[in-house]
């Protein structure tokens, strides 16, 4: 009998474990029936292997849940992110800016100054036959100055419009006990932690009447710029069960803590997240009183300045996984360009689809002491909302950025890609006809662009796109594609103007092709339909200055305006610089753009058609209108 070796229990798979146990028994030689599934020994091995398998899985799950990159359960991800100081976003209330004016001319006994406390302005919005409630979270003030007309503004920011937030106001009260480090759980998963107001009342008596004898408002730790022993700070964050837990400092490290007998009041909005975005009309839902006199709704005017926006659902697991390490690296201060992106995204994530920041020294036109930020906004945001968010971002940068560094917004520059794809197709290898295959190929190309472009720092790779084309159907045997990139510019109609466009990649040199490298869509010049292209039959000097002059006739960098029949209207309208990807159009007077469009497309053939990289504020998008596919029917396999 051989000496039994140790049992390997590091396998995860049940069958492997059972085989390991059998190997052990084989070596022991005492029992021989381990190979027969009906044997008693096999039953014992089943139990042992199953137990080991279960333990191995538990160990595996436990280890996976211990790291942010591998954790699968939301409580684990939230908990690990919090250990990095990252508090995941709760549901966010949609918000809107409004003006509120009350005409109380002739109403006797009203005070000159009227104040509306948070929650006293209640508006109703409606979308898809569902009503949403919007309310103010800041105190509002108005001074009639003897006119009887009250125009309200936020108490703390009189120059700003009034902000209202979606959600039904809720209160949760806790009596502070004698235990230390108490955690107060708010049993509501739909809370908006950003608009929550935490008040601590001296005792139960004072809490009965809001605004009564004594209460202190506490500040969110994330909004605190300085902390000392007198600070009143709270932390409101997601608990493992999806509810929210409120904690305070212990009286030493995070400032003052409530004492025994105090009453903690959590006033929050139970909101519906992004469902309440894009509401265009708000009306008064609840009467407003001034000096305890109810004002007739007919005399109250609520004007919306922006559609509702910014509502969002709880931050997803993948978003937490991505953002938490960057947020930790940023350390709540804006030093590197990544810090800017990270902190802005953290604060305004419900408005922003994607963000890119870079230092002024990295800009093509260096501007030292500046930080550039380019933002792709979420769909449906109107200009006034974007302006408000930009103001908020600048205020955030003022708080957290290094002194003397300015934030500068740059709009994303979109470069469109159009493809001309040809694929070999063998009809005998499929039951699908050519036109269906072609539409499937087109759909796959569009899907490739949808998944791989549209955000910052993305790359178009022709080979990857063609792989998708080849995988459309077994009858698609091979494929090839030409890539054309495109920028769009708005012409100043009927004015002579200079235009400059910079592509994110180098362009093909003129003599690489007999066809135009640069060309535009059609526009009207002097009542004639025409377009721009680089000259195809130009005299290009081949020799240096001082040498015998030699010319060749062929395509050049110079740009001309020609009609569709090829008649030249303007001999020289600019030039393009292949290495820099820059096209300069000088003194062009556009009369009109046909086809109901207000822009002109400027096409260019890139030097390397295989790859187009978007850097800084460049974004790549697909232009299906200018793209086409063609099936070439073959009989080979």
């Amino acid at each position, binding site marked *: 009998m051989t000496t039994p070796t140790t049992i390997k229990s590091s396998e995860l798979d049940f069958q492997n474990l059972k085989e390991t146990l059998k190997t052990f028994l084989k070596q022991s030689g005492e029992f*021989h029936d381990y190979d*027969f*599934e*009906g044997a*008693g020994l096999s039953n*014992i091995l*089943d139990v042992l292997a199953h137990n080991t398998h279960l333990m191995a899985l538990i160990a595996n799950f436990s280890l996976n849940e211990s790291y942010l990159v591998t954790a699968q359960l939301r409580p684990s991800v939230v908990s690990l992110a919090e250990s990095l100081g990252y508090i995941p976003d709760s549901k966010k209330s949609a918000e809107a800016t409004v003006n509120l004016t009350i005409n109380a001319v002739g109403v006797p006994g009203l005070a000159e100054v009227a104040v509306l406390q948070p929650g006293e302005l209640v508006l109703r919005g409606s979308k898809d036959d569902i009503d949403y409630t919007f309310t103010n979270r800041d105190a509002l003030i108005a001074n009639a100055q003897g006119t009887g007309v009250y125009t309200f503004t936020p108490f703390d920011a009189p120059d700003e419009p009034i902000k209202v937030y979606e959600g039904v106001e809720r209160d949760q009260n806790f009596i502070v006990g004698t235990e230390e480090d108490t955690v107060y759980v708010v049993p509501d998963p739909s809370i908006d932690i950003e608009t929550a107001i935490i008040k601590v009342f001296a005792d139960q008596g004072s809490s009965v009447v809001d605004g009564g004898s004594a209460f202190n408002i506490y500040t969110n730790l994330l909004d605190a710029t300085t902390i000392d022993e007198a600070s009143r700070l709270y932390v409101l964050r997601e608990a493992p069960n999806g509810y929210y837990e409120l904690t305070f400092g212990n009286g030493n490290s995070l400032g003052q803590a409530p004492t025994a007998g105090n009453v903690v009041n959590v006033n929050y909005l139970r909101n519906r997240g992004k469902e309440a975005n894009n509401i265009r009309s708000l009306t008064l839902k609840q009467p407003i009183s001034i000096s305890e006199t109810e004002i007739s709704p007919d005399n109250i005017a609520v004007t919306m300045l922006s559609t509702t926006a910014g509502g969002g659902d709880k931050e997803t697991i993948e978003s937490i996984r991505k953002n938490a390490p960057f947020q930790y690296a940023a350390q709540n201060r804006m030093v590197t360009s990544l810090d800017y992106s990270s902190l802005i995204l953290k604060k305004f994530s419900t408005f922003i689809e994607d963000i890119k920041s870079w230092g002024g020294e990295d800009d093509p036109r260096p501007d030292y002491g500046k930080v550039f930020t380019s933002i792709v906004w979420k769909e449906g945001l109107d200009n006034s909302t974007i302006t408000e968010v930009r103001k908020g971002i600048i205020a955030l940068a003022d708080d957290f950025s290094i002194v003397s560094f300015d934030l500068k917004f740059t709009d994303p520059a979109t470069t469109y890609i159009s493809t001309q794809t040809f694929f070999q197709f063998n009809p005998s290898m499929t039951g699908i006809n050519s036109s269906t295959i072609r539409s499937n190929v087109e759909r796959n190309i569009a899907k490739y662009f949808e998944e791989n472009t549209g955000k910052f720092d993305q790359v178009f790779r022709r080979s990857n796109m063609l792989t998708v084309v080849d995988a459309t159907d077994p009858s698609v045997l091979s494929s090839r594609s030409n890539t054309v990139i495109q920028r769009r510019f708005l012409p100043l109609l009927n004015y002579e103007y200079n235009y400059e466009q910079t592509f994110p990649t180098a362009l093909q040199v003129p003599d690489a092709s007999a066809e135009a490298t640069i060309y535009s869509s059609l526009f009207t010049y002097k009542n004639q339909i025409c377009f721009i292209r680089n000259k195809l039959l130009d005299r290009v000097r081949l020799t240096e200055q001082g040498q015998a002059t030699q010319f060749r006739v062929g395509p050049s960098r110079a740009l001309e305006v020609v009609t569709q029949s090829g008649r030249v209207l303007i001999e020289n309208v600019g030039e393009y610089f292949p290495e820099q990807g820059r096209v300069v159009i000088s003194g062009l007077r556009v009369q009109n753009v046909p086809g109901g469009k207000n822009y002109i497309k400027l096409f260019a053939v890139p030097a390397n058609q295989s790859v187009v990289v978007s850097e800084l504020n460049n974004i790549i998008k697909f232009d299906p209108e200018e793209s086409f596919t063609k099936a070439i029917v073959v009989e080979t396999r």
Partner: protein
Amino acid sequence: MALRRVTPGLKDKTLATSRVRKNSDIDLLFKPKPGVVQDPVYRWDPRTQRMVLIEGQMIGDVYKKEDAAAVVQSVENILLTNDFEKPYLPFFGANIRSMLFETVENYTEELVRSEIIKSVQLYEPRATVVNVEFWDSNKKLPQGMVILREQIHNSVVIKVEFKIDNYQESFVAKVNMNRLR
């Protein structure tokens, strides 16, 4: 005439040897062999005038099933196992007990028989089923399971007769199926 090539030193006769595989399995009764008693507590029994063990755990080795007994136990295991009982081998077993709750039809008897033969063939290659019989407690039942309902004892014994490799005689495994009411 064919020539025979003889390699010097080698015999021209084929030597046939047999390798006997020993069957040995653990006895699923888990009754320990008499052996050492752990933490024993004895008491004097005046009636028998002997010390009697009143507390303690027998820690002797378990019994083993060997040779044909091991195969018989294996076949009994197969007969007593239902589908989905064995982990990661969901269709192991003859699935007889599940028949208890099925409607009894003319073909039920044949169905049980074929299930038994198939599962033993699949999972116990050492045994070959030669006959499956259905008995009342002590009387062989006539053909047709429908008569089962009329049996006064509300029980059927399924006797499976099978051969084991390298054994001349037949062996029998029994499964008792009882109806409570």
